[in-house]
């Protein structure tokens, strides 16, 4: 569905992406992990058409991305500027749904059910500035989920929520991917999380970033916060991703660069 080939980007003289190639199949959940500042957000913004990369190619559903594609949603990293402060949480979630041709009541229902999914059923009338950072982030996730895009981009979406909520949201994302046929590209700097949620984990190097490894997690779709994390496969993969992120080399050459 999404194919990125040799993506290069520089901010002025500063090269951030040094030729990133990766592809995401329809319905897949791919997590991208890499050290902070390596260009993950830059990669995502290029896919969303918010930034014109210096070089390389991005194909989405068979067409090159030139402007912002339809049917795509994003959860920005900077949640504090992501919601409109002049609207309540429910209206923030409901506003994009106008485009989907839903009437007022249906928009409201969809917004309420999305807020419910992220555990904010009672917060619909609150304004963003009346909420904690974690709550704002969840509203922003709810907005993206309610929109039902075919491609969902998430930039470190669980950065400021507490541990318990984080686990719930990870499971929610897995669930949504499985049941609504969404394709998800999720960026994180958390190694454990990248393995837990991903069908595949793409590890980026320090900038200028290239793909250091592209690993299949092979953990199946039904995952459990405790049981999955105890699996041998999980533990080994987490250790390997950890080494790669720190700039080391893989100990299991067979699984490296195993692109689909």
């Amino acid at each position: 569905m999404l194919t990125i080939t040799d993506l290069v980007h520089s901010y002025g003289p500063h090269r951030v992406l040094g030729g990133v190639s990766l592809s995401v199949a329809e319905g897949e959940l791919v997590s991208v992990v890499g050290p902070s500042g390596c260009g993950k957000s830059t990669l995502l913004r290029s896919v969303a058409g918010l930034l014109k990369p210096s070089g390389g190619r991005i194909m989405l559903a068979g067409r090159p991305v030139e402007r912002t594609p339809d049917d795509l949603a994003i959860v920005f990293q900077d949640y504090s500027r992501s919601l409109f402060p002049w609207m309540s949480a429910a209206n923030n979630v409901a506003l994009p749904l106008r485009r989907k041709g839903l009437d007022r009541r249906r928009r409201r229902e969809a917004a309420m059910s999305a807020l419910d999914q992220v555990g904010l059923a009672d917060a619909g009338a609150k304004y963003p500035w009346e909420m904690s950072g974690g709550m704002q982030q969840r509203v922003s996730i709810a907005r993206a989920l309610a929109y039902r895009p075919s491609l969902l981009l998430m930039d470190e979406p669980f950065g400021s929520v507490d541990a318990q909520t984080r686990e719930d949201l990870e499971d929610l994302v897995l669930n949504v991917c499985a049941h609504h046929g969404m394709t998800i590209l999720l960026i994180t700097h958390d190694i454990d999380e990248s393995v837990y949620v991903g069908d595949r984990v793409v590890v980026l190097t320090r900038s200028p970033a290239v793909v250091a490894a592209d690993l299949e997690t092979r953990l199946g779709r039904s995952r459990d916060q405790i049981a999955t994390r105890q699996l041998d496969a999980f533990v080994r993969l987490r250790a390997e991703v950890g080494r790669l992120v720190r700039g080391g080399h893989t100990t299991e050459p067979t699984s490296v660069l195993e692109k689909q």
Partner: protein
Amino acid sequence: MKVIAALGRLWLVPVVLVAWEVVTRAAEQPFFPPPSAVLARMYEMWFSGPPSRLLLTDGALADLGPSLARLFSGWLLTAVVGVAAGIAIGCSPRLSDYVNPLIQFGRAVPPPLLVPFFLALLKLGTPAQLATIVFGVIWPILLNTVDGARTVDRQHLETARIFGFSSVQRLWRVVLPSALPKIFAGLRLALSLALILMVIAEIFAGTDGIGYRLLYTQRSYLYPDMWGCIVLLGVLGYLLNSAFLLVERRVLAWHRGARRTT
């Protein structure tokens, strides 16, 4: 508690009034009548009407009515034009480059100087008066709106783009609310300017209104009446500003909330 605190801060007003009364009585200058005489004249001229009309006399309606009508129609007309133009200019860097020199020139011209020009161009009375008010008041509204529309948070615009907002939605739901705090600052400044220009327009190009009454009383040596007009204008300015702040506080509640927390 709030009321008591507010009253506590008002003690200077009676002190000044008493001092003024004492000094003017001692000086016995016809040009400086004591405030008691001024207030008595204001009561006779404007506020001794029947209760059914909120105590307003015919004189009050004749003086205040046309003035307020001019003030508000001029201000509202300018608000609509200024905000619309400001948003357009703020959203388009190219348009902004074109019109910026004109704006800088226009706002540097002191509006009272244009009264003779408007008088020559338009008819004496309402058209020339409105033109004076609009021309003088538009600059703070226009410049503030341009500034507000230009400084919309980039991520808010990106959100609009991602979720495919139509241009109307983007303008109405994103750009305008973002610019609203600055627009309100401009509108408030414009309101006080509109009062000043209303008086000037009535003095130079009027046949009725408070400004005209001010000129008339001064020429007829009716100094307590003249001072009454000045006091009335001061009170009017104060009331307009307070009412505006009240509205602003409601409309921009989100802005105050957001600023408190960040």
